[in-house]
């Protein structure tokens, strides 16, 4: 049978190549994801190796947890005295205090350089063993006014030794003389970040660090890591710790690993969508091929093959394709990895340049997934093949009028219900592995709808095709009839498109609902005329001086900065704000249900949003424990409980006094301002011009602009998600092409007849294109329908995170239909051309 399978395959090359392509694409996505994330991991490992080279131990103050947010390490500095003591240890060859924090370089046009990566400043090390920077040009900084810069940033922005460089730091904007550029080992830049370094004293001044953020230590010859740590430990004060290089690297790797894992999962979800769509295409192609080979199958049966043997033959064919296509897919994965890397670079997320990492795991997982998915998709066609009776070899099997079976109805219905149950459970009942429930539910729902859709495919094709009949006469009529004559096939073809479009339109609807809800929330929560910063990712640290400067303008009545940080409450990391109790009420709208803002000025107080307070069972006057990275657990008194929009006024607010006492560094995340009475927004914004020039690293936006940039950031996220689904859509289109090509082949005689009685080639092409258009629009109708339904379910379930309005972006939905139709027409290009080229005589020949 193996031989027969191989023969069967080689007889149908064109369509098999397209079938294989849909496997290749899905597998390539899976493999590409693994390759990319493995490559990322290894790049970061290399990076941390470089950054910690020569550091045998690091000394720093203890922190109960590591905050991933904020602009500084979040730890208290260690003292110069401690450094001296460590340097004096015999086990120590060299020890050096290091200072680092944020520093934004202003380029030669006066614009702040703000990559989607950290903007760092640090103290240039003097100890050879510990210095991570390697000079490229010039020399190390020696005086307080000198600065060095990473060679990558210098080259990109045209800085050369001798230039004056403007740098924005916590203390304001200052100029320094560039005396050198440096790299890190063999790279000139780290992940697109910008880096400047000064002598330690300048770094301490501009970063406002009294002492050192950490002390790096190199062991003396012959002293091992444990001995070094033990020696240091003996002299450390109680709140200071020393960790070895391994632990240090591990700590940093853990941080990036969790981010990479999220990234990996997200990409794999999209890969799964592509595979799911690919499975549809495969199943459909195989069932058409089986239908067209009914005589051949019957002949095998007639000469004595059992049903099981025929079934195995079909599965064997599938397996051969699956193995070959998956292997190609794995290889193509490398291309996908490079493509994704390029796509992210285009979006501003520059990833380190490193050779692609190809692990055996990647090959095994991607191959297995490809083979399993393909084989699963072929099971139903294989069963159909095995049911072909031997007598079918003798008669001309009529191909039209396929019936939608009761079994399909029952199984489709129950799969839909199961999907719905999983979805609702995942969305509304917060089970563990919530996302798995939602994902499996959505998958089952799509599958069930696809199983049921043949019920309506015929009717839908006629409804959708109605205008075609009206407008395009006989070609339209025939296209409509052809689209409707094989409901199972049409439904399966449209079903593949439905999945991609369903997800895209779901994202659109969710995005729109989010937008409408949050824009409403901005109106409700924010009364400020001006918003400074707060729209970039990563957030730009804003010097507290900016709020002061703003308020000193005669056109500005009031300006106030809001600081952000992370704390732990009951063991969970939470975001807190630091606000000025005397000003914040003028720019935001909150309503106190008990207590008030007044006592927030006191040390050790906080106000809490009502929902959270209720959840925790807190009331005004309660003393609760809040853990800070710098100061550890603190007793904080709840002095007010308020209601307001979570996204804009947060859940926990501290006064400046409490915030600054418990966090290192002071930088605002966002600054709000109100214009003075009688000042129009135009006048006000004009008055801000000098400050805009003085603080090039932050955006100054009127409330209207702020809303626009908020919408833009949401739209960018939507665009990203849509781009990730493009592959799934392409696979679905490949399915349309495949089905049409097979149908055209099947209708050779009809097409020949149409040509004979006077249909022009152009009309034939048009007929096929209309058919594709009808199928594509059918897929879009189902997809948008499901998108609406999912959108509704999810929005209903998201009231808790502030999404309280269901909104449908009509314009975007129209675009989806338009694009789907256009794509359908494009997918029909090849089959249409084939049909038009068909030789009339071949078509009418009667053997």
């Amino acid at each position, binding site marked *: 049978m193996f031989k027969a399978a191989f023969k069967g395959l080689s007889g149908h090359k064109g369509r098999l190549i397209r079938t294989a392509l849909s496997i290749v694409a899905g597998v390539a996505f899976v493999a590409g994801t693994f390759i990319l994330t493995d490559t990322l991991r290894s790049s970061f490992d290399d990076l941390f190796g470089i950054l910690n080279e020569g550091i045998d131990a690091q000394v720093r103050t203890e922190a109960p947890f590591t905050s991933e947010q904020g602009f500084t390490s979040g730890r208290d500095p260690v003292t110069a005295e401690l450094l001296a003591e460590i340097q004096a240890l015999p086990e120590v060859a060299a020890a050096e205090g290091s200072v680092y924090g944020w520093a934004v370089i202003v380029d030669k046009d006066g614009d702040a350089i703000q990559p989607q990566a950290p903007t760092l400043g640090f103290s240039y090390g003097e100890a050879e063993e510990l210095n991570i920077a390697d000079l490229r040009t010039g020399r190390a900084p020696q005086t307080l006014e000198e600065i060095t810069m990473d060679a990558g940033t210098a080259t990109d922005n045209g800085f050369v030794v001798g230039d004056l460089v403007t740098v924005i730091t916590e203390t304001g904007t200052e100029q320094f003389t560039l005396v050198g550029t440096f790299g890190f080992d063999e790279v000139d830049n780290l992940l697109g970040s910008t880096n400047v370094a000064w002598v330690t004293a300048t770094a301490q001044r501009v970063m406002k660090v009294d002492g050192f953020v950490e002390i790096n230590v190199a062991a003396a010859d012959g002293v091992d890591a444990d001995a070094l740590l033990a020696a240091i430990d003996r002299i450390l004060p109680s709140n200071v710790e020393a960790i070895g290089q391994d632990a240090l690297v591990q700590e940093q790797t853990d941080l990036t690993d969790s981010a990479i894992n999220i990234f990996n999962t997200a990409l794999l979800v999209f890969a799964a969508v592509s595979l799911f769509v690919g499975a549809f295409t495969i199943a459909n192609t195989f069932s058409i091929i089986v239908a067209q080979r009914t005589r051949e199958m019957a002949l095998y049966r007639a000469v004595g093959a059992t049903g099981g043997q025929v079934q195995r033959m079909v599965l064997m064919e599938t397996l051969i394709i699956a193995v070959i296509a998956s292997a190609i897919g794995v290889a193509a994965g490398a291309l996908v990895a490079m493509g994704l890397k390029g796509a992210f670079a285009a979006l501003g997320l520059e990833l380190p340049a490193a050779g692609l990492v190809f692990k055996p795991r990647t090959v095994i997982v991607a191959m297995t997934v490809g083979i399993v998915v393909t084989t699963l998709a072929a099971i139903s066609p294989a069963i159909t093949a095995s049911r072909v009776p031997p007598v079918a070899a003798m008669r001309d099997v009529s191909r039209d009028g396929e019936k939608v079976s009761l079994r399909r109805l029952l199984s489709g219905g129950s799969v839909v219900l199961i999907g719905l149950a999983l979805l609702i459970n995942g969305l509304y009942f917060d089970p563990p592995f919530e996302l798995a429930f939602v994902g499996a539910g959505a998958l089952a729902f799509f599958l069930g709808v696809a199983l049921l859709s043949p019920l309506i495919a015929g009717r839908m094709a006629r409804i959708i095709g109605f205008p075609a009949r009206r407008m395009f006469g*006989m070609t339209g009529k025939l296209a409509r*009839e052809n689209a409707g004559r094989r409901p199972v096939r049409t439904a399966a073809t449209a079903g593949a498109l439905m999945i991609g479009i369903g997800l895209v339109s779901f994202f659109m609807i969710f995005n729109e609902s989010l937008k409408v809800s949050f824009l409403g929330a901005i109106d409700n929560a924010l009364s400020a005329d001006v918003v400074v910063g707060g729209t970039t990712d990563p957030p730009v640290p804003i010097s507290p001086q900016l709020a002061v400067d703003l308020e000193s303008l005669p056109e500005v009545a009031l300006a106030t900065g809001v600081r952000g940080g992370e704390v732990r409450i009951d063991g969970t990391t939470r975001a807190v704000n630091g606000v000025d109790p005397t000003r914040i009420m003028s720019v935001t709208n909150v309503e106190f249900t008990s207590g008030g803002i007044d006592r927030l000025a006191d040390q050790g107080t906080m106000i809490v949003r009502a929902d959270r307070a209720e959840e925790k069972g807190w009331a005004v006057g309660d003393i609760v424990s809040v853990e800070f990275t710098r100061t550890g657990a603190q007793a904080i008194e709840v002095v007010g409980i308020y209601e307001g929009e979570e996204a804009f006024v947060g859940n926990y607010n501290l006064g400046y006094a409490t915030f600054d006492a418990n966090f290192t560094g002071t930088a605002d995340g966002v600054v709000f301002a109100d214009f003075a009475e009688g000042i129009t927004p135009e006048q006000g914004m004009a008055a801000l011009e000098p400050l805009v020039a003085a603080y090039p690293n932050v955006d100054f936006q009127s409330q209207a602009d702020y809303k626009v940039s908020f919408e833009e950031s949401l739209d960018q996220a939507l665009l990203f998600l849509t781009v990730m689904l493009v592959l799934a859509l392409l696979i679905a289109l490949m399915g349309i092409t495949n089905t049409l090509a097979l149908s055209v082949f099947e209708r050779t005689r009809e097409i020949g007849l149409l040509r004979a009685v*006077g249909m022009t080639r152009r009309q034939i092409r048009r007929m096929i294109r209309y058919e594709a258009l009808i199928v594509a629009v059918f897929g879009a109708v189902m997809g948008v329908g499901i998108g609406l339904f999912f959108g509704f379910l999810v929005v209903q379930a998201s009231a808790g995170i502030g999404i309280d309005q269901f909104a449908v972006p009509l314009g975007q939905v129209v675009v989806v239909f338009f694009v789907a139709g256009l794509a359908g027409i494009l997918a029909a290009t090849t089959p249409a051309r084939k049909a038009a080229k068909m030789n009339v*005589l071949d078509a*009418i020949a009667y053997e």
Partner: protein
Amino acid sequence: MTQTVHDQPSATQPSGAIAARAIGAVKVYGEGAATVRALDGVSLQFPEGEFTAIMGPSGSGKSTLLHCLAGLDELTEGRTFIGEVDLTTLKDKELTLLRREKIGFIFQAFNLIPTLNANENITLPQAIAGTKPDSEWYEQVIETLGLADRLRHRPSELSGGQQQRVAAARALVARPEIVFADEPSGNLDSKSGSELLGFMRMAVTDLKQTIVMVTHNPLDAAYADRVVFLADGRAVDEMHGPTAERVLDHLKKMEG
């Protein structure tokens, strides 16, 4: 046949206009050793209003001749005309329009589009052209072919004979200059076959249609005004006012 030869009738001198003709038609299939001369210099005329049957042994080139006359296939040498139009000078698009407007077809099988009902199949060429058939003429053809009560049926709901009559109706409704039929009764039982031929005869006699029909059945040939005999790609003989016996005799003679 490379030079133009006008009015070189093969045997007869018909009185009226000529609906179609072939002049030195040569059709060669294949290359090298495997070449087949399916038509080896055929010159024939088909007068308007005449019912011509083409007969000959299997492989003698009957279908090839019909296809070339109807603009479905291209000659290797020589020329074919529909009316005064030289088909060998036409492009694909022009040929298609010519087929749509001036030629009717009845094939041996697969004459109908399965998704269209009888009426839609009959008016298919007009629908493709975006025009309407002449309703009076349409009624007359439907009447003649006895299809009035079958118009809403799809091909799968019609018998073989009915299907071929629908095909004949389609060929006639367009009022083509000429109808080509390739073994139209080849797939029918003898009763349906003779019924169909009766209708075709009526179309010629009553509706003044011109028909060229390939057949291998002497009974069918007897409905024609004239029989042309082909052998090895040449027109070897013809017979006027054929009867089944005479045709059979002639065929026996040809084989013997």
